[in-house]
């Protein structure tokens, strides 16, 4: 099941990474005066997108499901190294990208209206991600378990109903 969820999460992760890069770029143009800079945060985020795309290409390229799962898992483990790099990039290096807007335990300087909107949208994005990942995991499970009795019973029952 872990492999099913890894495959189900990857496209959603890639989608959110594209959105972060693209909408960040739309924000960067009027704010920084440029669409893109080879800044530590932006570059590490772009590497994350390539890791997602690489993972999806790798598992799709190998016909043997078990081998594809293992190869994908290996790439995912290597890719996890990039996550703390993205998070700490604005602390470790002097970048154009601003530091964290929110810090746990520290006094918040963000306007409450913006803070509420941001937290609400964060919650909405998580809800969306859970829903779409579960929907995709359901499809992948059916693709893999198509020869099992339960999958056939499910399809037969839904065709009758």
């Amino acid at each position, binding site marked *: 099941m872990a492999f099913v969820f890894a495959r189900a999460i990857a*496209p*959603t992760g890639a*989608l959110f990474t*594209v*959105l972060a890069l*693209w*909408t960040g770029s*739309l*924000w960067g*143009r*009027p704010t920084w005066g440029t669409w893109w800079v080879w800044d530590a945060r932006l570059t590490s985020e772009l590497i994350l997108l390539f890791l997602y795309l690489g993972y999806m290409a790798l598992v799709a390229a190998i016909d043997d499901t078990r081998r594809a799962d293992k190869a994908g898992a290996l790439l995912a483990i290597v890719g996890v190294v990039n996550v703390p790099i993205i998070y700490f990039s604005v602390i470790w290096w002097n970048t154009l990208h601003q530091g964290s807007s929110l810090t746990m335990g520290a006094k918040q300087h963000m306007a409450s209206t913006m803070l509420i909107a941001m937290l609400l949208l964060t919650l909405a994005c998580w809800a*969306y991600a859970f*829903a*779409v990942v579960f*929907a*995709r995991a*359901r*499809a*992948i499970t*059916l*693709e893999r378990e*198509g020869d099992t009795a339960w*999958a*056939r019973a499910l*399809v*037969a029952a*839904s*065709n009758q109903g």
Partner: protein
Amino acid sequence: MQWHSLSEFLDMGGRGGFVWGAYGTMAVLMLVEPLLAHWRHRAARAAIAERMADEEAARQAGARP
């Protein structure tokens, strides 16, 4: 920031293209992705149903004298 008309609101102080571009991209991608997941599920079910129908047809053909 306060707006006094719809056009002023849409213009977003001259940054409307950036603001609505960001919202638009997000809306389109977040509509397309669940649709793709739904179609994939439907295709998986159709493939199983087709395989079951093929097997049933082969069984009936084999049972015929």
